[in-house]
């Protein structure tokens, strides 16, 4: 069993729209609850958090701090989830339940590497 990082990109525009209505917002969050709840029941959930839109970028040996470049909307990282899975294929199957996909979002699935020699 390996750990996988699921990186969520985009999907935020739709979420903002849903924030206008408490009922729709609750329904949207209920989807997260169902998806992550199922993972928890299977013992595969490790952790997950959404990210704020604002941030900083630190670059190079000079440690230059800038406000960007952040790509807009679709490609911006909006959150992550770490889960356990037997294979990349299973992790991909898991990722298909992610609610961001319903709002034109993208999920990138990556196995967490072990750096042991």
């Amino acid at each position, binding site marked *: 069993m390996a750990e996988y990082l699921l990186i969520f990109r985009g999907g935020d525009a739709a979420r903002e729209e849903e924030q206008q209505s408490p009922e729709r917002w*609750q329904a949207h*969050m*209920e989807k*997260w*609850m169902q998806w*992550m*709840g199922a993972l*928890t*029941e299977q*013992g595969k*959930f490790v*952790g*997950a*958090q*959404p990210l704020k839109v604002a941030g900083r970028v630190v670059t190079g040996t000079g440690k230059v701090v800038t406000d960007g470049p952040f790509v807009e909307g679709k490609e911006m990282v909006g*959150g992550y*989830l770490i889960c356990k899975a037997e294979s990349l294929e299973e992790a991909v199957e898991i990722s298909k339940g992610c609610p961001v996909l319903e709002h034109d979002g993208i999920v990138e699935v990556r196995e967490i590497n072990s750096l042991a020699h």
Partner: protein
Amino acid sequence: MNASFTISKLTDQLFRHEAGKMVALLTKIFGTENLDISEDVVQDTFINAMQVWPLKGVPDNPSGWLFRVAKNKAIDVLRRNKFSRQIDFNDPERTLLQSEYTLTAAVEKLWRDDEIQDDLLRMMFACCHPDIAEENQITLILKTLCGFSTSEIAKAFLTSEDTVSKRLYRTKNFFREKKIKPEFPAPAQLKYSIEAVLKAIYLIFNEGYNATHANDLIRKDLLDQAMYLCKLLAENANTRLPEVFAAMALMCFHSSRINGRINEQGEIVLLAQQDRSKWNRQLIEEGNAFMNKAAYGDVISSYHIEAAIAYEHCIAETFEQTNWQNILAYYDMLVAVHPNAVVMLHRLTVIYKVFGAAKTLEEMDAAVYKKDWEKNYLYYALLGDIYAKTAPERSKEYYQIAFNMTQSSAEKNLLQKKMNDRGGI
């Protein structure tokens, strides 16, 4: 009566009735290992109410308001402690409280108010864990689930606030180490657990009935709450045992006489002088119904016998018609089941009724409970009665000792009256 006074009275009342339920719910989120967090959230919520209500008015549904605010505060606490080890997020029921994606929905899922009565009972059983000393169990139930202050518990137990704080500290430490999960006991364990729970309930009841607090005579809210908790046990499929019904019957019989027991001046009226038409017939009937339900099984608990004693008083149409012989027989049974100083002392008052002074003094001398009795004002009050006719001066001295020992102003008034009359019952 000004607004802020009314609000503080209302919040006091709500604290008694709702704080325990709120703690029971919050414990599902924070665990018994974090009782302090749950209690802090409840405390904060009530402070908030006392700040907001005088300005914005009391909400239409004050309880609903309190639960909503407590829920939001719990979410804030979870947010602040997302990465702390204090809260056990490894428990599958709590894992999703750690992620912002699911925090609110996960709290909503745990915050089911239709299960609140079960939660409260589960908490009662957690407090009555067999590895916790009995006095610590009772202290925690009163503090955490019944909204009692440390000083009220100290008065109820005739002990110091310091002792009560130590008991609470020890029990919470036990919870912290063992992470006890609130649940209904296994069938084999049920009898033992129920006993401790009933004892705590009865203590609350007695606290209300005897009112050790100066100037706050009959604490109806205490009686109500004790009966509420007992009713929860009686109505729950997991806990409806004969002794639960017997305890319920006992409390119904006792509380039926409340209205006759105190006059308009807040003075205690002796059983002999009580206006029996003021007794609550409906409560007596309810007590009978519970007594019938208590009659199955082969268990005779002390509650069965005490209820039978209370019943004898309830059915006597006049004081003179009281069947003291029956009552004495019940006391003898009670002594056999549950020998202790208080029961023996009460039995003596019946001996005095049935056989008079000489026999009572004889039994007193033969008893091993003298040391315990000497801590109880009732003992001196009884001695005062015994000597009232034969040795008035001596009688007065005993009444005076009893007067100095009791904290209840109603009892003090009664003893003062007896001293003035130099006569007992």
